[in-house]
Protein backbone atom coordinates (compact mmCIF):
# COMPACT_ATOMS: atom_id res chain seq x y z
CA UNK A 1 0.00 0.00 0.00
CA UNK A 2 1.56 3.26 -1.06
CA UNK A 3 0.82 6.89 -0.26
CA UNK A 4 1.15 9.37 -3.11
CA UNK A 5 1.26 13.11 -2.50
CA UNK A 6 0.90 15.38 -5.52
CA UNK A 7 1.42 19.15 -5.56
CA UNK A 8 0.28 19.48 -1.98
CA UNK A 9 -0.23 23.02 -0.66
CA UNK A 10 -1.57 23.96 2.72
CA UNK A 11 -2.35 27.38 4.15
CA UNK A 12 -3.19 27.96 7.82
CA UNK A 13 -5.86 30.50 8.84
CA UNK A 14 -6.75 31.56 5.33
CA UNK A 15 -7.65 35.24 5.08
CA UNK A 16 -6.84 36.09 8.68
CA UNK A 17 -4.03 38.24 10.02
CA UNK A 18 -1.99 35.17 10.81
CA UNK A 19 -2.26 33.53 7.41
CA UNK A 20 0.74 31.27 6.92
CA UNK A 21 1.72 28.96 4.15
CA UNK A 22 2.67 25.71 5.84
CA UNK A 23 3.29 23.52 2.82
CA UNK A 24 4.05 24.47 -0.74
CA UNK A 25 4.06 22.11 -3.69
CA UNK A 26 5.09 18.94 -1.89
CA UNK A 27 5.43 15.86 -4.08
CA UNK A 28 6.17 12.57 -2.40
CA UNK A 29 5.55 8.86 -2.76
CA UNK A 30 5.79 6.59 0.25
CA UNK A 31 6.29 2.98 -0.82
CA UNK A 32 5.28 -0.16 0.96
CA UNK A 33 7.69 -1.28 3.67
CA UNK A 34 9.88 1.81 3.72
CA UNK A 35 11.41 3.37 6.80
CA UNK A 36 11.43 7.12 6.25
CA UNK A 37 13.06 9.66 8.51
CA UNK A 38 11.47 13.10 8.18
CA UNK A 39 13.65 15.93 9.41
CA UNK A 40 13.36 19.69 9.40
CA UNK A 41 13.66 22.72 11.59
CA UNK A 42 10.78 23.65 13.94
CA UNK A 43 8.02 25.15 11.80
CA UNK A 44 9.27 23.58 8.59
CA UNK A 45 5.95 21.87 7.98
CA UNK A 46 6.76 18.33 9.11
CA UNK A 47 3.83 17.98 11.48
CA UNK A 48 1.45 19.53 8.97
CA UNK A 49 2.65 17.11 6.32
CA UNK A 50 2.17 14.01 8.46
CA UNK A 51 -1.34 15.07 9.41
CA UNK A 52 -2.23 14.99 5.73
CA UNK A 53 -1.28 11.34 5.53
CA UNK A 54 -4.44 10.12 7.25
CA UNK A 55 -6.82 12.91 6.37
CA UNK A 56 -6.73 14.84 9.63
CA UNK A 57 -5.95 17.90 7.55
CA UNK A 58 -7.30 18.38 4.07
CA UNK A 59 -5.06 19.94 1.41
CA UNK A 60 -5.68 23.55 0.41
CA UNK A 61 -4.76 22.32 -3.05
CA UNK A 62 -3.17 19.19 -4.43
CA UNK A 63 -3.95 15.55 -3.73
CA UNK A 64 -3.15 12.86 -1.21
CA UNK A 65 -3.80 9.32 -2.40
CA UNK A 66 -3.70 6.44 0.07
CA UNK A 67 -3.76 3.14 -1.74
CA UNK A 68 -5.22 4.94 -4.74
CA UNK A 69 -8.03 6.57 -2.76
CA UNK A 70 -8.23 10.36 -2.76
CA UNK A 71 -8.55 11.62 0.81
CA UNK A 72 -10.45 14.72 -0.26
CA UNK A 73 -13.06 12.56 -1.97
CA UNK A 74 -16.29 12.49 0.06
CA UNK A 75 -16.79 8.83 -0.81
CA UNK A 76 -13.52 7.82 0.82
CA UNK A 77 -14.03 6.14 4.16
CA UNK A 78 -11.88 8.25 6.48
CA UNK A 79 -12.05 5.72 9.27
CA UNK A 80 -10.70 2.99 7.00
CA UNK A 81 -7.85 5.32 6.03
CA UNK A 82 -7.09 6.07 9.66
CA UNK A 83 -7.05 2.36 10.41
CA UNK A 84 -4.46 1.80 7.67
CA UNK A 85 -2.35 4.86 8.42
CA UNK A 86 -1.73 5.06 12.16
CA UNK A 87 -0.53 8.39 13.48
CA UNK A 88 1.25 8.79 16.81
CA UNK A 89 1.33 12.45 17.79
CA UNK A 90 4.00 14.28 19.71
CA UNK A 91 3.68 13.59 23.44
CA UNK A 92 0.99 11.00 22.72
CA UNK A 93 0.54 10.30 26.45
CA UNK A 94 -1.50 13.52 26.55
CA UNK A 95 -4.31 11.75 24.73
CA UNK A 96 -4.83 8.97 27.31
CA UNK A 97 -8.20 9.18 29.03
CA UNK A 98 -9.58 5.80 30.03
CA UNK A 99 -9.70 4.31 33.51
CA UNK A 100 -7.39 1.43 32.71
CA UNK A 101 -4.54 0.69 30.34
CA UNK A 102 -6.52 -2.06 28.67
CA UNK A 103 -9.56 0.14 28.00
CA UNK A 104 -7.42 2.92 26.60
CA UNK A 105 -5.65 0.68 24.13
CA UNK A 106 -9.01 -0.86 23.20
CA UNK A 107 -10.41 2.59 22.27
CA UNK A 108 -9.16 2.42 18.66
CA UNK A 109 -10.22 -1.17 17.89
CA UNK A 110 -13.60 -0.51 19.53
CA UNK A 111 -14.12 2.48 17.23
CA UNK A 112 -13.49 0.14 14.33
CA UNK A 113 -16.48 -1.91 15.49
CA UNK A 114 -14.59 -5.14 16.13
CA UNK A 115 -15.96 -7.87 18.38
CA UNK A 116 -14.74 -8.34 21.94
CA UNK A 117 -12.54 -11.36 21.22
CA UNK A 118 -10.73 -9.55 18.43
CA UNK A 119 -10.36 -6.40 20.58
CA UNK A 120 -8.90 -8.50 23.36
CA UNK A 121 -6.45 -10.16 20.99
CA UNK A 122 -5.34 -6.83 19.57
CA UNK A 123 -4.86 -5.23 22.99
CA UNK A 124 -2.69 -8.14 24.13
CA UNK A 125 -0.74 -8.10 20.88
CA UNK A 126 -0.17 -4.33 20.98
CA UNK A 127 0.99 -4.49 24.59
CA UNK A 128 3.40 -7.28 23.72
CA UNK A 129 4.81 -5.22 20.85
CA UNK A 130 5.55 -2.25 23.10
CA UNK A 131 6.94 -4.54 25.81
CA UNK A 132 4.27 -3.87 28.43
CA UNK A 133 3.33 -6.78 30.66
CA UNK A 134 -0.39 -7.44 30.09
CA UNK A 135 -1.00 -9.39 33.30
CA UNK A 136 0.68 -6.85 35.49
CA UNK A 137 -0.51 -3.62 33.87
CA UNK A 138 -3.79 -4.13 32.04
CA UNK A 139 -6.07 -3.03 34.88
CA UNK A 140 -3.85 -0.22 36.18
CA UNK A 141 -4.89 3.40 35.74
CA UNK A 142 -3.01 5.10 32.91
CA UNK A 143 -2.31 8.03 35.20
CA UNK A 144 -0.33 5.89 37.66
CA UNK A 145 2.27 4.89 35.08
CA UNK A 146 5.70 6.37 34.50
CA UNK A 147 6.29 8.73 31.58
CA UNK A 148 7.93 6.09 29.42
CA UNK A 149 5.17 3.60 30.16
CA UNK A 150 2.47 6.14 29.34
CA UNK A 151 4.17 6.81 26.02
CA UNK A 152 4.21 3.10 25.25
CA UNK A 153 0.53 2.73 26.18
CA UNK A 154 -0.26 5.57 23.78
CA UNK A 155 1.74 3.96 20.99
CA UNK A 156 0.03 0.63 21.72
CA UNK A 157 -3.29 2.45 21.35
CA UNK A 158 -2.38 3.23 17.75
CA UNK A 159 -0.78 -0.16 17.08
CA UNK A 160 -3.99 -1.86 18.17
CA UNK A 161 -5.60 -0.42 15.03
CA UNK A 162 -3.08 -2.64 13.16
CA UNK A 163 -2.03 0.02 10.67
CA UNK A 164 0.04 -0.82 7.60
CA UNK A 165 1.74 2.55 7.77
CA UNK A 166 2.81 3.97 11.12
CA UNK A 167 3.62 7.66 11.33
CA UNK A 168 5.36 8.87 14.48
CA UNK A 169 5.82 12.56 15.24
CA UNK A 170 8.91 12.84 17.45
CA UNK A 171 8.28 9.62 19.32
CA UNK A 172 11.23 10.15 21.67
CA UNK A 173 10.66 13.79 22.64
CA UNK A 174 11.06 14.37 26.36
CA UNK A 175 12.17 10.84 27.26
CA UNK A 176 15.31 9.89 29.15
CA UNK A 177 18.06 8.03 27.23
CA UNK A 178 16.79 4.64 28.28
CA UNK A 179 13.22 5.51 27.31
CA UNK A 180 14.49 6.66 23.90
CA UNK A 181 16.36 3.43 23.35
CA UNK A 182 13.28 1.41 24.21
CA UNK A 183 10.98 3.35 21.91
CA UNK A 184 13.45 3.30 19.02
CA UNK A 185 13.99 -0.41 19.57
CA UNK A 186 10.32 -1.18 19.35
CA UNK A 187 9.89 0.94 16.22
CA UNK A 188 12.76 -0.90 14.61
CA UNK A 189 11.30 -4.26 15.55
CA UNK A 190 7.93 -3.27 14.21
CA UNK A 191 9.47 -2.40 10.88
CA UNK A 192 11.59 -5.51 10.67
CA UNK A 193 9.19 -8.11 12.01
CA UNK A 194 5.76 -6.90 11.01
CA UNK A 195 6.95 -5.15 7.85
CA UNK A 196 5.12 -1.98 8.83
CA UNK A 197 5.94 1.09 6.77
CA UNK A 198 7.36 3.69 9.12
CA UNK A 199 7.49 7.47 8.80
CA UNK A 200 9.38 8.94 11.74
CA UNK A 201 9.60 12.68 12.34
CA UNK A 202 12.66 13.45 14.41
CA UNK A 203 14.96 16.21 15.53
CA UNK A 204 17.70 13.75 16.25
CA UNK A 205 19.93 13.15 13.25
CA UNK A 206 21.46 10.20 15.08
CA UNK A 207 18.11 8.46 15.51
CA UNK A 208 17.33 8.99 11.84
CA UNK A 209 20.81 7.83 10.81
CA UNK A 210 20.58 4.64 12.82
CA UNK A 211 17.10 3.63 11.62
CA UNK A 212 15.91 5.26 8.41
CA UNK A 213 16.41 3.87 4.92
CA UNK A 214 15.29 7.09 3.31
CA UNK A 215 15.58 10.64 4.60
CA UNK A 216 13.29 13.51 3.68
CA UNK A 217 14.24 17.07 4.59
CA UNK A 218 11.67 19.86 4.90
CA UNK A 219 12.47 23.56 4.99
CA UNK A 220 9.96 26.47 5.00
CA UNK A 221 7.16 24.17 3.92
CA UNK A 222 9.06 22.77 0.98
CA UNK A 223 10.49 19.34 0.48
CA UNK A 224 14.15 20.13 -0.19
CA UNK A 225 15.93 16.79 -0.01
CA UNK A 226 14.83 13.21 -0.49
CA UNK A 227 17.26 10.35 -0.67
CA UNK A 228 19.18 7.62 1.08
CA UNK A 229 20.81 8.74 4.37
CA UNK A 230 24.29 8.44 2.85
CA UNK A 231 23.51 11.10 0.23
CA UNK A 232 21.49 13.42 2.43
CA UNK A 233 23.99 13.43 5.29
CA UNK A 234 26.85 14.17 2.93
CA UNK A 235 25.30 17.63 2.40
CA UNK A 236 26.42 18.99 5.76
CA UNK A 237 26.60 22.60 4.61
CA UNK A 238 23.04 22.69 3.27
CA UNK A 239 21.68 20.96 6.36
CA UNK A 240 23.40 23.41 8.69
CA UNK A 241 22.05 26.26 6.58
CA UNK A 242 18.54 25.03 7.42
CA UNK A 243 19.24 24.95 11.14
CA UNK A 244 19.81 21.20 11.08
CA UNK A 245 22.95 19.18 11.54
CA UNK A 246 24.55 15.91 10.52
CA UNK A 247 24.77 12.80 12.72
CA UNK A 248 27.62 12.59 15.20
CA UNK A 249 29.30 9.87 13.13
CA UNK A 250 29.53 12.25 10.15
CA UNK A 251 30.90 15.02 12.36
CA UNK A 252 33.50 12.67 13.74
CA UNK A 253 34.44 11.42 10.26
CA UNK A 254 34.87 15.03 9.05
CA UNK A 255 37.08 15.92 12.02
CA UNK A 256 39.24 12.84 11.51
CA UNK A 257 39.58 13.59 7.81
CA UNK A 258 40.69 17.15 8.67
CA UNK A 259 43.44 15.67 10.81
CA UNK A 260 44.63 13.62 7.89
CA UNK A 261 43.08 10.28 8.65
CA UNK A 262 41.92 8.23 5.74
CA UNK A 263 38.17 7.87 6.27
CA UNK A 264 36.05 6.94 3.24
CA UNK A 265 33.22 9.31 2.19
CA UNK A 266 29.61 8.52 2.91
CA UNK A 267 29.94 7.23 6.45
CA UNK A 268 27.00 8.17 8.66
CA UNK A 269 26.45 5.40 11.19
CA UNK A 270 28.17 4.98 14.53
CA UNK A 271 28.99 1.32 13.74
CA UNK A 272 30.60 2.29 10.43
CA UNK A 273 32.87 4.91 11.96
CA UNK A 274 33.73 2.45 14.70
CA UNK A 275 34.92 -0.10 12.11
CA UNK A 276 36.99 2.54 10.33
CA UNK A 277 38.65 3.70 13.54
CA UNK A 278 39.43 0.12 14.45
CA UNK A 279 40.98 -0.41 11.03
CA UNK A 280 43.23 2.61 11.50
CA UNK A 281 44.14 1.54 15.02
CA UNK A 282 45.01 -1.95 13.75
CA UNK A 283 47.37 -0.45 11.18
CA UNK A 284 49.03 1.34 14.05
CA UNK A 285 48.27 4.99 13.74
CA UNK A 286 48.16 8.12 11.70
CA UNK A 287 48.86 8.36 8.00
CA UNK A 288 48.46 4.75 7.18
Amino acid at each position, binding site marked *: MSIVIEHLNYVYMTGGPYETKALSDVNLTIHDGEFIGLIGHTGSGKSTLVQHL*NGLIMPTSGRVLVDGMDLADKATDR*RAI*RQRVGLV*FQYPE*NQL*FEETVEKDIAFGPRNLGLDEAEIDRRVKDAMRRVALDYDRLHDRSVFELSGGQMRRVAIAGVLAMEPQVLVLDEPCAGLDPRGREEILGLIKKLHEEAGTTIVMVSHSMDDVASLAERVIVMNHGELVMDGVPRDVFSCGEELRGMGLDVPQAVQLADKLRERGFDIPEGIYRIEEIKTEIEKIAAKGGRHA
Partner: protein
Amino acid sequence: MLKDITLGQYFPGDSAIHRMDPRMKLILTIVYIVGVFMVSNLPGYLLALAFLYLVVRISGIQFSYLVKGVKPLRFIILFTFVLNLFFVQGETPILSLGFFTLTKEALDNAIYFALRLVFLVMGTSVLTLTTSPVQLTDGLERLMRPLQRFHFPAHELAMMMTIALRFIPTLLEETDKIQKAQMARGADFESGNLIARAKAMIPLLVPLFVSAFRRANDLAMAMEARCYRGGDHRTRLRELKYTKLDAIGALAMAAFLFVVVLEGRLLG
Protein backbone atom coordinates in the same frame (compact mmCIF):
# COMPACT_ATOMS: atom_id res chain seq x y z
CA MET B 1 -14.48 25.41 13.47
CA LEU B 2 -12.61 26.48 16.60
CA LYS B 3 -10.43 28.70 14.49
CA ASP B 4 -13.47 30.69 13.29
CA ILE B 5 -13.95 32.34 16.66
CA THR B 6 -12.74 35.90 16.26
CA LEU B 7 -14.27 37.14 19.52
CA GLY B 8 -11.42 37.68 21.93
CA GLN B 9 -8.74 37.53 19.27
CA TYR B 10 -6.22 40.35 18.99
CA PHE B 11 -5.38 41.82 15.60
CA PRO B 12 -2.01 43.51 15.98
CA GLY B 13 -1.69 46.99 14.49
CA ASP B 14 -0.67 50.56 15.05
CA SER B 15 -3.75 52.56 14.14
CA ALA B 16 -5.22 55.40 16.17
CA ILE B 17 -7.72 52.97 17.61
CA HIS B 18 -4.96 50.58 18.63
CA ARG B 19 -3.07 53.37 20.36
CA MET B 20 -5.99 54.60 22.43
CA ASP B 21 -5.92 53.99 26.15
CA PRO B 22 -7.56 50.66 26.98
CA ARG B 23 -9.55 52.30 29.78
CA MET B 24 -11.07 54.74 27.32
CA LYS B 25 -11.78 51.97 24.85
CA LEU B 26 -13.53 49.93 27.53
CA ILE B 27 -15.69 52.86 28.58
CA LEU B 28 -16.48 53.83 25.00
CA THR B 29 -17.43 50.27 24.13
CA ILE B 30 -19.90 50.22 27.01
CA VAL B 31 -21.26 53.61 25.93
CA TYR B 32 -21.60 52.36 22.36
CA ILE B 33 -23.56 49.31 23.50
CA VAL B 34 -25.83 51.50 25.62
CA GLY B 35 -26.28 53.69 22.56
CA VAL B 36 -27.20 50.73 20.41
CA PHE B 37 -29.74 49.57 22.95
CA MET B 38 -31.40 52.99 22.93
CA VAL B 39 -31.96 52.78 19.19
CA SER B 40 -35.35 51.51 18.14
CA ASN B 41 -35.74 52.26 14.48
CA LEU B 42 -33.93 51.25 11.33
CA PRO B 43 -32.25 54.59 10.52
CA GLY B 44 -30.77 54.49 14.00
CA TYR B 45 -29.21 51.11 13.30
CA LEU B 46 -27.82 52.40 10.04
CA LEU B 47 -26.23 55.18 12.06
CA ALA B 48 -24.75 52.68 14.51
CA LEU B 49 -23.47 50.64 11.60
CA ALA B 50 -21.92 53.69 9.95
CA PHE B 51 -20.17 54.64 13.17
CA LEU B 52 -18.87 51.13 13.66
CA TYR B 53 -17.74 50.98 10.06
CA LEU B 54 -15.84 54.24 10.49
CA VAL B 55 -14.07 52.98 13.60
CA VAL B 56 -13.19 49.71 11.90
CA ARG B 57 -11.84 51.55 8.87
CA ILE B 58 -9.61 53.68 11.09
CA SER B 59 -8.38 50.59 12.91
CA GLY B 60 -7.32 48.97 9.63
CA ILE B 61 -9.19 45.73 10.27
CA GLN B 62 -11.19 44.23 7.47
CA PHE B 63 -14.90 44.61 8.13
CA SER B 64 -15.52 41.10 6.82
CA TYR B 65 -13.39 39.84 9.67
CA LEU B 66 -15.82 41.39 12.11
CA VAL B 67 -18.78 39.87 10.32
CA LYS B 68 -17.14 36.47 10.50
CA GLY B 69 -17.02 36.89 14.28
CA VAL B 70 -20.81 36.95 14.39
CA LYS B 71 -21.11 33.67 12.53
CA PRO B 72 -20.56 31.32 15.50
CA LEU B 73 -23.41 33.12 17.28
CA ARG B 74 -25.89 32.85 14.44
CA PHE B 75 -28.02 30.27 16.26
CA ILE B 76 -28.37 32.37 19.39
CA ILE B 77 -29.31 35.34 17.25
CA LEU B 78 -31.78 33.30 15.24
CA PHE B 79 -33.22 31.90 18.46
CA THR B 80 -33.73 35.40 19.87
CA PHE B 81 -35.31 36.47 16.63
CA VAL B 82 -37.80 33.60 16.56
CA LEU B 83 -38.57 33.92 20.26
CA ASN B 84 -39.44 37.58 19.87
CA LEU B 85 -41.47 36.85 16.77
CA PHE B 86 -43.69 34.45 18.68
CA PHE B 87 -43.96 35.93 22.10
CA VAL B 88 -44.23 39.68 21.66
CA GLN B 89 -47.83 40.83 21.91
CA GLY B 90 -48.82 43.34 19.26
CA GLU B 91 -51.86 45.02 17.83
CA THR B 92 -51.21 45.33 14.13
CA PRO B 93 -51.44 41.92 12.50
CA ILE B 94 -49.74 41.55 9.13
CA LEU B 95 -49.96 37.82 8.66
CA SER B 96 -52.25 35.16 10.05
CA LEU B 97 -51.52 31.45 9.95
CA GLY B 98 -54.08 29.44 11.89
CA PHE B 99 -53.55 30.08 15.58
CA PHE B 100 -50.44 32.16 14.99
CA THR B 101 -50.70 35.82 14.14
CA LEU B 102 -47.64 37.78 13.16
CA THR B 103 -47.87 41.36 14.30
CA LYS B 104 -45.87 44.34 13.17
CA GLU B 105 -44.70 44.99 16.72
CA ALA B 106 -43.38 41.46 17.09
CA LEU B 107 -41.54 41.63 13.81
CA ASP B 108 -39.99 44.98 14.71
CA ASN B 109 -38.96 43.74 18.11
CA ALA B 110 -37.46 40.57 16.71
CA ILE B 111 -35.43 42.49 14.15
CA TYR B 112 -34.25 45.02 16.72
CA PHE B 113 -33.18 42.43 19.25
CA ALA B 114 -31.32 40.43 16.65
CA LEU B 115 -29.59 43.60 15.42
CA ARG B 116 -28.70 44.59 18.97
CA LEU B 117 -27.02 41.25 19.50
CA VAL B 118 -25.12 41.61 16.24
CA PHE B 119 -23.93 45.08 17.20
CA LEU B 120 -23.09 43.92 20.72
CA VAL B 121 -20.81 41.23 19.33
CA MET B 122 -19.29 43.44 16.66
CA GLY B 123 -18.78 46.36 19.04
CA THR B 124 -16.98 44.28 21.62
CA SER B 125 -15.02 42.56 18.85
CA VAL B 126 -13.61 45.95 17.84
CA LEU B 127 -12.41 46.36 21.42
CA THR B 128 -10.74 42.96 21.65
CA LEU B 129 -9.39 43.04 18.09
CA THR B 130 -7.59 46.33 18.69
CA THR B 131 -6.52 45.81 22.30
CA SER B 132 -4.06 43.17 23.37
CA PRO B 133 -5.30 41.00 26.24
CA VAL B 134 -2.63 42.41 28.53
CA GLN B 135 -3.68 45.98 27.83
CA LEU B 136 -7.29 45.04 28.25
CA THR B 137 -6.86 43.57 31.70
CA ASP B 138 -4.57 46.44 32.65
CA GLY B 139 -7.34 48.81 31.73
CA LEU B 140 -9.90 46.77 33.63
CA GLU B 141 -7.75 46.68 36.71
CA ARG B 142 -7.31 50.45 36.68
CA LEU B 143 -11.01 51.01 36.15
CA MET B 144 -11.86 48.73 39.06
CA ARG B 145 -9.23 50.16 41.36
CA PRO B 146 -11.60 52.51 43.22
CA LEU B 147 -13.54 49.42 44.28
CA GLN B 148 -10.52 48.17 46.17
CA ARG B 149 -11.52 50.46 48.99
CA PHE B 150 -14.44 48.10 49.52
CA HIS B 151 -12.09 45.10 49.56
CA PHE B 152 -12.85 44.24 46.00
CA PRO B 153 -9.90 42.15 44.70
CA ALA B 154 -9.31 44.20 41.55
CA HIS B 155 -5.73 43.10 40.99
CA GLU B 156 -6.42 39.43 41.62
CA LEU B 157 -9.40 39.52 39.31
CA ALA B 158 -7.37 41.19 36.59
CA MET B 159 -4.58 38.66 37.02
CA MET B 160 -7.05 35.81 36.76
CA MET B 161 -8.46 37.33 33.61
CA THR B 162 -5.01 37.80 32.12
CA ILE B 163 -4.18 34.18 32.79
CA ALA B 164 -7.50 32.95 31.45
CA LEU B 165 -7.13 35.01 28.27
CA ARG B 166 -3.54 33.95 27.90
CA PHE B 167 -4.53 30.29 27.98
CA ILE B 168 -7.48 30.41 25.60
CA PRO B 169 -5.32 29.96 22.48
CA THR B 170 -3.19 27.37 24.24
CA LEU B 171 -6.20 25.33 25.25
CA LEU B 172 -7.77 25.68 21.81
CA GLU B 173 -4.60 24.36 20.29
CA GLU B 174 -4.52 21.55 22.82
CA THR B 175 -8.16 20.70 22.08
CA ASP B 176 -7.40 20.59 18.39
CA LYS B 177 -4.45 18.31 18.96
CA ILE B 178 -6.24 15.88 21.27
CA GLN B 179 -9.22 15.83 18.95
CA LYS B 180 -6.98 14.89 16.05
CA ALA B 181 -5.16 12.29 18.12
CA GLN B 182 -8.46 10.63 19.01
CA MET B 183 -9.68 10.89 15.43
CA ALA B 184 -6.49 9.11 14.41
CA ARG B 185 -7.72 6.33 16.69
CA GLY B 186 -11.03 6.24 14.88
CA ALA B 187 -13.02 8.53 17.17
CA ASP B 188 -15.98 10.24 15.57
CA PHE B 189 -17.01 13.66 16.86
CA GLU B 190 -19.27 14.61 14.01
CA SER B 191 -22.04 12.07 13.65
CA GLY B 192 -24.57 10.31 15.85
CA ASN B 193 -27.35 11.62 18.04
CA LEU B 194 -26.98 14.02 20.95
CA ILE B 195 -26.13 11.32 23.52
CA ALA B 196 -23.59 9.65 21.25
CA ARG B 197 -21.97 13.00 20.62
CA ALA B 198 -21.86 13.87 24.30
CA LYS B 199 -20.25 10.50 24.98
CA ALA B 200 -17.73 11.11 22.22
CA MET B 201 -16.59 14.19 24.13
CA ILE B 202 -15.18 12.13 27.01
CA PRO B 203 -11.97 11.15 25.19
CA LEU B 204 -11.50 14.84 24.48
CA LEU B 205 -12.45 16.36 27.81
CA VAL B 206 -10.53 14.05 30.16
CA PRO B 207 -7.11 14.71 28.59
CA LEU B 208 -7.96 18.40 28.27
CA PHE B 209 -8.73 18.73 31.97
CA VAL B 210 -5.68 16.73 32.93
CA SER B 211 -3.49 19.02 30.88
CA ALA B 212 -5.21 22.19 32.09
CA PHE B 213 -4.58 21.21 35.71
CA ARG B 214 -1.00 20.34 34.94
CA ARG B 215 -0.50 23.69 33.24
CA ALA B 216 -2.09 25.52 36.15
CA ASN B 217 0.23 23.75 38.53
CA ASP B 218 3.30 24.57 36.44
CA LEU B 219 2.26 28.18 36.09
CA ALA B 220 1.74 28.55 39.84
CA MET B 221 5.21 27.16 40.44
CA ALA B 222 6.76 29.46 37.86
CA MET B 223 5.03 32.47 39.41
CA GLU B 224 6.18 31.51 42.88
CA ALA B 225 9.70 31.01 41.61
CA ARG B 226 9.62 34.61 40.45
CA CYS B 227 8.35 35.78 43.85
CA TYR B 228 4.92 36.84 42.65
CA ARG B 229 2.71 37.95 45.50
CA GLY B 230 0.23 40.24 43.80
CA GLY B 231 -1.84 42.76 45.64
CA ASP B 232 -0.71 46.21 46.75
CA HIS B 233 2.38 48.17 45.87
CA ARG B 234 3.05 46.42 42.61
CA THR B 235 4.46 48.88 40.14
CA ARG B 236 3.85 48.41 36.46
CA LEU B 237 5.99 48.23 33.40
CA ARG B 238 3.75 50.48 31.35
CA GLU B 239 1.74 53.17 33.09
CA LEU B 240 -1.51 53.93 31.34
CA LYS B 241 -1.87 57.49 30.09
CA TYR B 242 -4.74 59.29 28.43
CA THR B 243 -3.70 61.12 25.28
CA LYS B 244 -5.23 63.43 22.71
CA LEU B 245 -6.49 60.36 20.86
CA ASP B 246 -8.64 59.41 23.81
CA ALA B 247 -10.16 62.87 23.94
CA ILE B 248 -10.98 62.67 20.23
CA GLY B 249 -12.45 59.21 20.72
CA ALA B 250 -14.60 60.37 23.61
CA LEU B 251 -15.83 63.36 21.62
CA ALA B 252 -16.66 61.20 18.61
CA MET B 253 -18.61 58.83 20.82
CA ALA B 254 -20.43 61.70 22.49
CA ALA B 255 -21.37 63.02 19.07
CA PHE B 256 -22.64 59.60 18.06
CA LEU B 257 -24.70 59.28 21.22
CA PHE B 258 -26.12 62.76 20.72
CA VAL B 259 -27.15 62.03 17.15
CA VAL B 260 -28.70 58.73 18.18
CA VAL B 261 -30.75 60.35 20.92
CA LEU B 262 -31.75 63.21 18.65
CA GLU B 263 -32.71 60.81 15.89
CA GLY B 264 -34.72 58.78 18.37
CA ARG B 265 -36.66 61.89 19.42
CA LEU B 266 -37.33 62.99 15.88
CA LEU B 267 -38.29 59.67 14.34
CA GLY B 268 -39.19 57.47 17.30
